[in-house]
């Protein structure tokens, strides 16, 4: 417990960031909420429409629902690649004796490359004419029948735009999880090994419970980043072909800045905020329940 004077000074120091947070995050959210009840194209008079934008969004907008389900697909692929990949690589790293730093750096490298460069890189990788890396590899492996224009095929484009985002941040989450894994007390692991625990038992009974708090944080981070994913799909396909890789974020952006329907775009953004909060709530709830059981 901090003495009174010290608590006051803590509050004084906390206030500026709190104000900044209020101005940069809370205020725009409230502004969006306010705008979502209006019809406004930026230059016309603002017309109060009540809940009409919400009714349109839930009942009359096929692109909204398509984007919502696409966003869930995008999230699932990103989470598998980022968290699954990160956990796998981090676990393997702990058993490596040499070259750890090099591998860590290599995996982290995509996280520091600019998004635009990554988008262009993957557009080339997926290309069919001229033949890109992926189609070339398939050809060399004798899987020529699988060659396709990955970004033009409505069945593959969503996975194709999700993979770069997943690949990009795997290294970052790997680093966080690796740091947690090496903090697992060695004596516990050794005791378990002496008791005859298998590698899997070691992982599920000792390592994973120990890194659970870190795992929760990374899951929340990856989920919220995934739900807000925008730049790579927007740059690679602009949501196309058709609406096959349209996410809620890209749809909201287009509604606001191409269609100049700021009222309706705000309605979508309010939905995104609620969706993120619900997702975080669900993660906390599920992991807490699992921990209790």
């Amino acid at each position, binding site marked *: 417990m901090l003495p009174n004077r010290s608590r006051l000074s803590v509050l004084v120091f906390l206030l500026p960031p709190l104000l900044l947070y209020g101005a940069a995050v809370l205020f725009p959210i409230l502004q969006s909420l*306010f705008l979502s009840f209006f019809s406004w194209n930026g230059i016309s008079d603002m017309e109060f429409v009540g809940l009409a934008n919400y009714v349109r969004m839930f009942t009359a907008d096929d692109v909204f629902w398509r984007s919502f389900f696409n966003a869930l697909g995008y999230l699932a692929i990103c989470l598998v690649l980022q968290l699954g990949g990160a956990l796998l690589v981090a676990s393997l790293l702990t058993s490596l004796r040499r070259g750890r730093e090099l591998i860590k750096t290599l995996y982290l490298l995509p996280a520091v490359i600019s998004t635009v460069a990554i988008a262009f890189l993957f557009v080339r990788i997926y*290309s069919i004419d001229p033949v890109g890396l992926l189609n070339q590899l398939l050809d060399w492996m004798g899987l020529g029948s699988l060659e396709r*224009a990955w970004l033009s095929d409505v069945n593959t484009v969503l996975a194709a735009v999700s993979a770069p985002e997943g690949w990009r941040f795997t290294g970052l989450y790997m680093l966080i999880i690796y740091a947690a894994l090496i903090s697992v007390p060695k004596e516990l692991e050794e005791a378990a090994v002496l008791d005859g625990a298998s590698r899997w038992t070691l992982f599920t009974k000792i390592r994973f419970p120990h890194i659970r708090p870190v795992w929760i944080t990374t899951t929340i981070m990856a989920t919220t980043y995934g739900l807000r994913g925008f730049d790579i799909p927007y740059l690679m396909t*602009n949501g196309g*072909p058709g609406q096959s890789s349209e996410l809620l974020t890209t749809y909201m952006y287009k509604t606001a800045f191409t269609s100049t329907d700021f009222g309706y775009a705000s309605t979508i953004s309010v939905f995104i905020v609620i969706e993120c909060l619900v997702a975080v709530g669900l993660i906390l709830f599920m992991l807490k329940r699992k921990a209790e059981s």
Partner: protein
Amino acid sequence: MKKLFRTAAVAAVTALALAGCGGGGASNSSNVTPTGEIKPREISWLLSRPADGAVINIMKKLADDYAKNHPGFSLNLITTPDRPSYIQKLETLAAANKLPELFDTDATPFAQQLAKQGKMVDAEKLLKTLNVYDDYRPAALDYQRFDDRSLYMIPFQFELEFIWYNKSLLQKAGVSAPKSLDDIPALCTSLRKAGITPIAIDGQDQWPLERYAAYQPFRETGPDFIQKLKKGEAKFSDPAGQKTVEWLAALGKAKCFQDGFSSQGYSDAQNQFTSGKAAMYNIGTWELPSLATDKLNPAVRGDIDFITLPTTEGTATAANEFVSPSGIGMAVNSKTYDPLVSDFLKFALEKYPSEYAATGALSPTTNVKTAIPANATPLYKKAVEKANDLGDEQAMPWDTQLDPTTNGRLQQELVLLVQGDITPEQFTSTMDSAVAQNAPKFFK
């Protein structure tokens, strides 16, 4: 917490109210002769043109010349060549009432709303007052006009769009250049059989495919169909609409465009054509320096030729009527229009055409002659001369005509239609409901 929430809500409302009221100064779009002293200052032009292109280079030079006699004057050119990004920038600035002295825009429904609100100077009156109106090509001005024939934008270019083709590739497939639009699907099939990509297209930027949607209705009805369609008075289910839908589906079925075209960009498409892989390429005279000079790949240089937009049986428009855009136009902000802006425009618009024509480009005016570059192939002159023989009508690009939401949806659905992912019936019903839902908001 409740109190905090209430305070924040009030702040949000106040900020919005202030934004709504801010900068709404009185302006008059028809007052083109402002009186008073010329007070040199910096003026800005928000534009969407290539950073090192002729328009910017010439205007920079003219601004420097003007500044010699008007110390303190400067022209700040803020360019965003990527059109979708530019439009977003423009619309955001317009919403904030922060448009600069000069800004680029097409004759879009959004621009028409700005004009109706008196935010743009009447360009017809302005050009007449500056005594340059009659110098302009009627087609260059018409391209900038809204449907009610009012003119609020000044053109700085004049372009003609052709279908370029590779004679040797067509010959290899045993076909000749299309005489009618309806010949193209069969032509594509023959080219594909010979292992040749029929048409190179920049699918990423979406407007090139939208051009194809405009062709059949223009030949069938002239500008009538799109003018009605955008207001919801015509439908894709009408005969003219169905003709274009069926034709586009046929283009897709015949695999006219390169594989994976929807994710290929401007330079990818051009490379396909200039490297001799694709047989046809639809592009305007702004590409003359790369298609009709010695910069063109020597392997294909002798094989290249072009045709204007083919006609169809029973066509309503003539062969010399096709897409002849005068590019994005420049609008003058009425709020900041003063003796300085007026005087600078007078100076610049008088001198601009000769400087522009000297670069080998087509001027939007008829009082100057385009200089053919020394390294040009004979096609250069042939292309430039086409500008002297144009009909009265011109095919308007649909992306400047439709409301932005319908336009966005059309661009998306076109890709699906051409790729065969949706049927012509699905396309028709989706687009007709998109027009019905969005057009009324823009064309009240």
